[in-house]
């Protein structure tokens, strides 16, 4: 039986206009990836400045320069609907690669911020 689990992966952006590449590994028991959502400790910076590339199992789901704001959900969205629906993605080797780029934007002043990727998964129930 598959049970829903949420995984969180963080990266730190410490310099303006920099690119941060991070690779994360999912548990082997995860059988499906259903959705993703991006959040931050400084939402405005992620919203206005962020772009990212997202790969799962070496397959590109969002290309470079895809704006983070398109993968964020405000508090007006029902909690159960906040994830960007990817369908049922086979995690394969379970490797998720994020290439995050901070871009200059006139509305914000840079300060270091955290970017969190939440992954909505289905895990094999081992009980």
């Amino acid at each position: 039986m598959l049970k829903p689990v949420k995984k969180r992966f963080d990266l730190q952006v410490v310099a303006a206009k920099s690119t941060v590449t991070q690779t994360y590994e999912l548990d082997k028991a995860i059988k499906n990836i259903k959705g993703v959502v991006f959040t931050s400790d400084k939402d405005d910076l992620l919203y206005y400045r962020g772009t990212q590339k997202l790969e799962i199992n070496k397959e590109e789901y969002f290309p470079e320069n895809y704006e983070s704001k398109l993968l964020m959900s405000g508090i007006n969205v029902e909690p159960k609907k906040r994830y960007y629906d990817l369908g049922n993605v086979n995690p394969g080797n379970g490797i998720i690669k994020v290439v995050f780029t901070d871009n200059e934007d006139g509305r914000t002043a840079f300060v270091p911020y955290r970017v969190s990727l939440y992954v909505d998964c289905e895990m094999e129930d081992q009980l």
Partner: protein
Amino acid sequence: MRKEQVIITPLRITKGLQNKHFQVKLPKTAKKIIGIELGGFWMGARGDGGVIFIGSPGGAAVYPADSFKLEAAMFAASRDLKGVQFFRRNILIGELKLQSCEEANIFYAGHLQMDNNLSQGDFTQTPFWTPQPFTHEIKSFEEHIIVDADSTVISGLYRDRIGEITKANIDYLVNLYVWIEVENNEPKTEAK
């Protein structure tokens, strides 16, 4: 097997009322265009480009100079009505039209704008805090269209409108996202 893919086309706008003609190349494996999405960044440094900045608790918001005057007047008017907020005109940034080279007429016409009415009817707002796009925005979705991708390119025209409103040259980047469906005939390789 068919899968979705997105092509990102950045368009840099530097002058008021600038018209930008561009083409988006489609891969040969593309079967149809299924959606269009728009986004962008202000490129001007803080305080440049005919824009003024207003501090807000969630960070500095940017408004073109003329629209600020308009907003200030509307805000004052709304205070007179004891917190009832008028609808405020959204700030139109630019207009976009797309045409497939294989088809007559445009298949997409849309506009890029800043939402000035997020706080409408939201009772969490106070005189010191109003809902911001990054706190209250609903989920972003592409606009669904269905156009076959027989053509290898689609032509587009982007016209700046914020320069017309503000009478200033505002430097910004528009990202056009063209979602396509591609045929993927490669056998799925097992991950190592």
